[in-house]
């Protein structure tokens, strides 16, 4: 009885819809706007024409202009990175002095006075503790600078202008203009960027945005880029220019990431994800003076500490794994040495080495621990005495000492450049992979989004290595 009635209602609605025709939606919208206009007319009065709207419009004219829009964008990116790189040095050195040079020996001392078994002591203190300490010392300072700066730009209202500037490029590549927003979020954290793709209505364009978000260098990868660029690229020129050149190299990689984002978006939209570019309205919000201290406080509490906590949660077990593979022996070689040895040939083809590839496998849970893993494994392979023993993750006090170890491990400028490229082009971290699955609910697309960047990384580093060796 009830079902009949509902069917009747539905068929009635279908009939009525036919009778009214196409104009229904438009005339409804017009009706709503007419009501809105009447109401506003009765209650809103404008005192005079001058006001903040004009100032906003004037700022917009400059930062969204064809001439100044892009240079300003890169300038702002450069300033933010510069402040992050330069500003993070001092607190990083302090933290590593405290956590690695003071607390670590103290813990070791306590463990030996308690008579702790060597393997438990090694596993917990040299594995888990050191991994966590490294992540805090290296990641906390740049994040505590980068995130608040980024949040200030966000609160000021700059992000939608970036989207406005990049809209044309995204459209050309068959993607949604709002992808500029999710891309910007990805510069902080890819998982956050992928959740943010919900603002894109069209499933096709949303998938493109999800798959290509990994090309935004995330927070876990900035420190790797900065460190390697400082050691190898900065060293090419006299000391007074080395800061500028390293900065340029890092920005170059970030921009290259954006180029790949456009290329892959374009490729996807021309092949498996064909379709029309959807139009949308982008509201350019008014500029709002950020509430400075409040923004600093909340971005440190909400973003920095949450991301740091995640890194620690993943770094602790990874530290344990590194220690284990270095101390479990197959015959007379450790698992780590065996892995490195078997991957060395493939690594050479890519202009990398076995150590780097093993480090990237171990570091799937968190990109942040790639560099310490590489250092630790390099020491293991070269038999240098700089570290504190097999499988002990450590950070060297000075950038020069880190460079010496890497060079002893056979690193050249090519290795460094290809590491920077591979850091940009490899699989997303496990959190991001899980987020992709949650957002797409598709194993297929999760696999595509995870594998595609690695394959690209292999191809790009291979090509660079071959051309480099041909020319050199």
């Amino acid at each position, binding site marked *: 009885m009830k*079902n009949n*009635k*509902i069917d*009747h*209602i*539905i068929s*009635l*609605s279908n009939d*009525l*819809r036919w*009778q*009214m025709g196409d104009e*229904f*939606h438009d*005339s*409804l*919208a*017009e*009706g*709503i*706007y*007419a*009501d*809105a*206009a*009447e*109401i*506003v007319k*009765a*209650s*809103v*009065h*404008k*005192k005079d024409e001058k*006001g*903040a*709207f004009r100032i906003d419009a004037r700022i917009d004219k400059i930062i969204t202009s064809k001439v100044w829009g892009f240079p300003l964008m890169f300038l702002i990116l450069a300033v933010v990175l510069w402040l992050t790189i330069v500003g993070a040095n001092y607190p990083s050195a302090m933290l590593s002095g405290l956590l690695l040079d003071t607390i670590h020996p103290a813990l070791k001392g306590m463990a030996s006075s308690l008579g702790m078994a060597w393997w438990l002591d090694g596993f917990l203190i040299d594995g888990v503790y050191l991994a966590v300490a490294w992540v805090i010392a290296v990641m906390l300072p740049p994040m505590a600078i980068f995130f608040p700066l980024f*949040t200030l730009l*966000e*609160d*000021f*209202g700059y*992000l*939608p202008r970036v989207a406005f500037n990049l809209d044309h490029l995204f459209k050309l590549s068959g993607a949604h203009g709002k992808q500029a*927003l999710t891309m910007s979020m990805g510069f902080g954290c890819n998982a956050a960027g992928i*959740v*943010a793709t*919900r*603002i894109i*209505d069209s499933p096709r364009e949303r998938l493109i945005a999800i798959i290509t978000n990994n090309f935004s260098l995330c927070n876990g990868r900035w420190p790797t880029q900065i460190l390697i660029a400082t050691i190898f690229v900065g060293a090419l020129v006299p000391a007074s220019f080395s800061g500028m050149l390293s900065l340029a190299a890092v920005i170059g990689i970030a921009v290259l990431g954006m180029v790949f984002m456009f290329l892959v978006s374009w490729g996807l939209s021309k092949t498996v994800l064909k379709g029309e570019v959807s139009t949308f*309205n982008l*509201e350019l*919000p*008014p500029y*709002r003076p950020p*509430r400075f201290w409040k923004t600093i406080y*909340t971005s440190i*509490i*909400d*973003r920095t500490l949450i991301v740091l906590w995640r890194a620690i949660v993943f770094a602790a077990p990874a530290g344990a794994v590194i220690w284990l593979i270095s101390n479990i022996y197959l015959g007379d070689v450790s698992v780590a040495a065996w892995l490195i040895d078997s991957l060395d040939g493939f690594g050479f083809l890519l202009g990398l080495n076995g150590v780097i590839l093993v480090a990237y496998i171990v570091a799937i849970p968190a990109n942040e621990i790639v560099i310490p893993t590489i250092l630790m494994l390099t020491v293991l392979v070269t038999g240098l005495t700089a570290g504190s023993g097999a499988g002990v993750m450590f950070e060297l006090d000075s950038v020069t000492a880190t460079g010496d170890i890497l060079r002893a491990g056979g690193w050249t400028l090519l290795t460094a450049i290809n590491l920077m490229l591979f850091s940009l082009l490899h699989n997303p971290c496990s959190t991001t992979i899980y987020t992709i699955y949650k957002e797409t609910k598709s194993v297929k697309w999760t696999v595509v989004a995870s594998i595609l960047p690695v394959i690209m990384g292999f191809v790009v580093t291979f090509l660079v290595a071959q051309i480099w060796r041909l020319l050199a």
Partner: protein
Amino acid sequence: MEVKPKSACESCAQFNADGLKKLGVNTNDFDFVVALAGNPNTGKSTVFNAMTGLRQHTGNWPGKTVTRAEGAFEYNKEKFKLVDLPGTYSLLSTSEDEEVARNFILFGKPSVTVIVVDASRLERNLNLVLQILEITNNAVLCLNLMDEAERNNLEIDTRTLAKDLGIPVVPTSARYNKGIPELIQTISELANGKIVCKPHRLKNIPKNIEQALEKLSTEIKQVYPDIPNSRWIALRLLEGDRNIIETLKTGEFV
């Protein structure tokens, strides 16, 4: 002209600091559910934070909140659960981030819906307000970003606005915690039935649509007599919204 009332005035009856307790994420055993709806980038999350004491991340770009966040506050011994919905320009569209907001306002049965609008862009914001008022009987207009409206030399006659819309209007500047005590007081009065709304219903709809709506909603009411927003369901049916057709079949909104 001073449009907003002074919120820090302790002698004011509306300033009831002792009665207010921000409960953060503790949303157990609430008495009322309050939904926070509005266009993108009108400061919903800021209003949410000011009321619950939480620090839901805020940002100056449309589309920042994509999932709904929940928090709570206690006022005069009654607990209110507050749901921060993603911003939406309209209830008539079909995008995924906006669906969360649409479904909650329609089927989540909030006791009170707070509609947050940008005071300096009122006309455009009213599009959504008028749509929400078609659905619910208990709503309050939170006229946010009053500081910006003042900077833009706009004067808003909140009494006329409240009269025209048929719901209470509270001017706020949530970033500076202004107007929040008044908003909480109004929410409490609405939830307890001390304020009764007579929400504005659309007037400028063409006659043929109006008749079709009337016809359909009468039929819907016969099947589901308790449903408060049959007119809206009728509207969606005329649009051919598949979700609504499904819900109508399963009857899940009752």
